[in-house]
């Protein structure tokens, strides 16, 4: 009974994570300019990856597998903002003008 509940919970996490990955990818395709697309990449990297990894951890149980997944999660949470920030800064230095909208809408 307990195992079944855990299994169900992990599937919910995995499917929600996959949905967020897809939403992030759609955002990368839909958003109008480079700097707004970075936000969609952020969605993919934090929520999508986090939920999928948590779902896999629930499948792994208390073992070495979970420790490794936790390490992947940890590294991802440190490297992803750094990579996104490096992209934004490089584009800013490469004189790529951001589209800015004023007060309306």
């Amino acid at each position, binding site marked *: 009974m307990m195992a079944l509940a855990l299994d169900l919970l992990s599937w919910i996490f995995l499917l929600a994570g996959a949905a967020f990955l897809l939403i992030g990818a759609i955002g990368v395709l839909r958003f109008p300019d480079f700097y707004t697309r970075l936000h969609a990449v952020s*969605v993919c990297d934090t929520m999508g990856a986090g939920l999928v990894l948590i779902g896999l951890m629930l499948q792994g149980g208390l073992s070495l597998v979970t420790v490794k997944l936790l390490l992947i999660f940890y590294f991802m949470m440190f490297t992803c903002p750094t990579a996104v920030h490096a992209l934004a800064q490089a584009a800013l230095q490469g004189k790529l003008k951001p589209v800015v909208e004023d007060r309306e809408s």
Partner: protein
Amino acid sequence: MSKLRHTLNLALFLFATWLLLSGHYTPLMLALGLLSTLLVVVLVTRADLIDQENQPILIKPSVLFYWLWLGREIYRSNIDVAWRILHPALPISPNIITVHAGQKTELGRVTYANSITLIPGTVTMDVDEDTLIVHALTQAAATSLKNGDINRRVCDIEDIF
């Protein structure tokens, strides 16, 4: 002789990581782990990279609480950004703001900038001493960042590093 202590610290940390990740405890594997630890330590010493900055630090409870709080913020703004992506009219209003970072140490400022980037809807574009240039996806994200809630919390956990 703090250099020797730092080197030993690093070697112990590396070997512990090897033990944790390998999962095989035969003599051959242990010897190989010891060898690779030595190789890394020799390389790092030759590159003269050993100082206070690359020491493995222990994580204090208040940092854990900060991470939990950050996770909740990330969850909230993810839902918001995901809704905006799927909305047929794309209700976004991108803008650029500058915020002040009130942290004293470099590590505190890095933590602040990385937290801003990690939350979808705001991306740190450039850091100049203690002002950050931030690209925000919506006006709402920009105003909530200007309230300085993250800034205050990073200042609170900063002094224990």
